[in-house]
């Protein structure tokens, strides 16, 4: 018995040692930084790349269609794409796979995901692929096609037999200039000066309003442009409802407490977070002031949030007429129109989120970018780069996605307006197509977007300011306590 026990102990110990060594010795799980292989991109070798995203439904079909076009352009590249369901799914799958040394080549990402992945050094910086980058004179044999994969010759005429030409590997100056600058610059705001992402498709918040209600009472109210006007409008709407005996109306609904807080900071130019120095700056008096204001509004019955109304989105209450103005993502634009016909349909209008200074409009920028992971096979990195470049500079792909759900192209409006498909789509705004209306309004505001700094822990700041607003609005905590608790949670794990 004793001997058996000793044997067991020895085995356990040996197991632990071996295990630790094996894990420590798993240096192979870390991939090498990209080095341009001799001969550049090898078109004679088949290369398969994996792309993880969270696209649902129709978006996957559109993606698949353009992947086919991409594979025609580079016949030796094969793309496998897989939806991980939701954002958390993408992040969890990838962090696990990184630990197994088995990560995909390309992923849909938010900025804080990139910061997290980069703790393991897994993300490939793309500076060398940009205009003026190290690979500026490298070319890639490319089958000439248009954006949809139809074969063309050097002049752009449709042909039946594929024509191959050597095209630049890098983004050209011309191509880079077409991206919306805010979105493009977002890729290099990680504090180390390197560029890691390109924007894929973007959305913002807009105010959806009950146009019928405003038209019926145009003598008393108009769509508010500033928060001061908003306060007056809310009071007036409540008065109207009382006069007309309409019960259960809250004038303003806001989907996301997180976005509300962050947008207020941006509009008031009040500190929120910073990627350098002290990271968490949101605990200050200006911010407490606006939180107090919204608590007051809530108590007066001016304002509710999705969570306060026991829901994920305010759009259901909006379509039922209980909310007159609903601020939410353009990505969910269609939900502000009731398609079932179960409620009386009113006309929906779209306006920018109210501001403090209309001459310095600040709108939140949201939506996925893409990053490329390091790989021990440089051909995979090259193929991934070509993939990212193809999709993020393709105005037709961007238009189709916008058309599908109200997301916004990442390319400048001036360029997009040269694309007939885009012009046709935007024209539908006149027929009250809610997606076209959202995209049109969003693109008109293309110079007004702001992004928050990205660093390891930035998502926790976001989550915590949302929770602090909830705790303060629901009265669970005093405003001061809510702020200090949120700050403690952030700094405890991520330092100051």
């Amino acid at each position, binding site marked *: 018995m004793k001997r058996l026990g000793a044997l067991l102990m020895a085995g356990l110990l040996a197991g632990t040692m071996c295990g630790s060594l094996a894990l420590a010795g798993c240096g192979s799980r870390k991939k090498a930084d990209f080095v341009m292989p001799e001969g550049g991109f090898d078109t004679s070798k088949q290369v398969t790349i994996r792309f993880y995203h969270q696209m649902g439904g129709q978006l996957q079909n559109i993606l698949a269609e353009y992947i086919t076009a991409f594979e025609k352009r580079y016949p030796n590249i094969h793309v*496998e794409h897989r939806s991980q369901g*939701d954002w958390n799914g993408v992040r969890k799958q990838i962090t696990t796979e990184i630990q197994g040394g088995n990560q995909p080549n390309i992923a849909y990402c938010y900025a804080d995901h990139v910061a997290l992945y980069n703790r393991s050094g897994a993300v490939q910086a793309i500076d060398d692929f940009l205009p003026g980058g190290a690979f500026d004179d490298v070319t890639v044999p490319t089958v000439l096609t248009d954006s949809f994969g139809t074969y063309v010759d050097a002049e752009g005429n449709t042909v039946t037999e594929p024509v191959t030409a050597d095209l630049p590997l890098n983004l050209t100056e011309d191509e880079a200039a077409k991206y919306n600058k805010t979105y493009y610059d977002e890729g290099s705001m990680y504090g180390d000066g390197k560029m890691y992402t390109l924007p894929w498709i973007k959305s913002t918040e807009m105010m959806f309003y009950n146009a019928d209600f405003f038209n019926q009472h145009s003598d008393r109210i108009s769509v508010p442009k500033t928060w001061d006007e908003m306060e007056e409008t809310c009071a007036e709407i409540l008065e109207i409802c009382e006069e007309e005996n309409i019960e259960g109306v809250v004038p303003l609904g806001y989907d996301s407490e997180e976005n509300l807080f962050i947008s207020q900071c941006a509009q008031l130019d009040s500190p929120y977070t910073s990627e350098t120095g002290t990271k968490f700056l949101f605990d200050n008096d200006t911010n407490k002031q606006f939180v107090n204001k919204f608590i007051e509004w809530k108590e007066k019955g001016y304002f509710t949030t999705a969570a306060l109304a026991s829901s994920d989105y305010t759009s259901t209450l909006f379509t039922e007429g209980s909310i007159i103005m609903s601020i939410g993502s353009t990505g969910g634009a269609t939900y502000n129109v009731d398609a079932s016909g179960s409620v009386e349909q009113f006309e929906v209008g779209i306006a920018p989120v109210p501001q403090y200074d209309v001459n310095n409009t600040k709108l939140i920028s949201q939506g996925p970018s893409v990053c490329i992971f390091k790989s021990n096979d440089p051909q995979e990195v090259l193929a991934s780069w070509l993939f990212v470049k193809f999709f993020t500079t393709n105005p037709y792909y961007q238009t189709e996605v916008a058309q599908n759900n109200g997301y916004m192209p990442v390319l400048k409006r001036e360029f997009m307006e040269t694309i007939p498909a885009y012009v046709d789509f935007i024209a539908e705004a006149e027929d009250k197509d809610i997606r076209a209306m959202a995209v049109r309004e969003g693109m008109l505001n293309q110079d007004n977007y702001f992004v928050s700094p990205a660093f390891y822990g930035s998502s926790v700041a976001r989550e915590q300011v949302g929770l602090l607003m909830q705790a303060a609005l629901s009265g669970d905590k005093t405003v001061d306590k809510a702020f200090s608790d949120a700050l403690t949670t952030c700094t405890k794990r991520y330092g100051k």
Partner: protein
Amino acid sequence: MEAENMEKIEETSPQPETPRGMAEKDINKTARAQLVGKIFVQIGLYLFLTVMAVIVLFPFYWMLISSVKSVAEYNALNPTLWPKQFVWSNYADVFSAEATGIDLGRMFLNTVIVGVVSTILSLIVTVLSAFALARLEFRGKNIVFGAMLATMMIPGELFTVTNYITVVNWLDWGNTFAALIVPFLVSVFYIYLLRQNFLQIPNELYLAAKVDGTSDLKYLWKVMIPLSAPTLISITILKMMGAWNSYIWPKLVVGDSHQLITVGLRELASMFSVGNNPNFPVQMAAVVLVTVPLLIVFICFRKYIMRGVSRSGTKG
């Protein structure tokens, strides 16, 4: 130890004494009173069971009606108990998405393969271990059993990453059925359950078999397994369901060629969402489609449960 406990029970239930010398009249009276009592008890039992059954069934019912509601009706503020209109196209939608390259047929086959193989192997492993722990005397038995129980106490989610590294990096089982089967062959829950069941079988039977010169395996096969049929069938059902419902692990370790049905159906269901807003009725339809085959298997197995039960009744 088991034998001692058996004796204890014999003590607590003394030998019956037949009521002799009672007047005929009294017997009739008590019989009638007993009959009335019995009827009341039976009514009470049925009432209790019916109420519980309704409570238990309700969510099941909800799942079914939700799968044929329209999105608007599902999302309506006041949920309806009966669909205003039946949207059967939710089911058609689940399958129409197949055009996008998710091969449901293959995933179904994969799931059956994984389910059957892992159930058979798991039953063998479980029966052998439970037998050793319930019937054999050996040094360190309590330690082994205790250690096994202890492994149930750590949340298994923590093992995911380590096991992922083991399976993909060390064993190189990425994208194989082995990766889906082997890590889950042993369930301490089932070993423990079966051990408890084996312990109920009087040890005298085993000792008698030993005297007769019956081998352990023969005894196991001829006596213990038939007597534990209900439990073994329960384990079989649970194990099959495990394969059927598993989602996180297969999604992690295998690609499309070896993928299991729940992952596929969830992927299909997610095709019907706009932005981040899922279409729940179609998802429910997918859930129902996952559940129905299980239900059929389950109802088929029920016969065997009953047979196993009646056998243990007559032989015990």
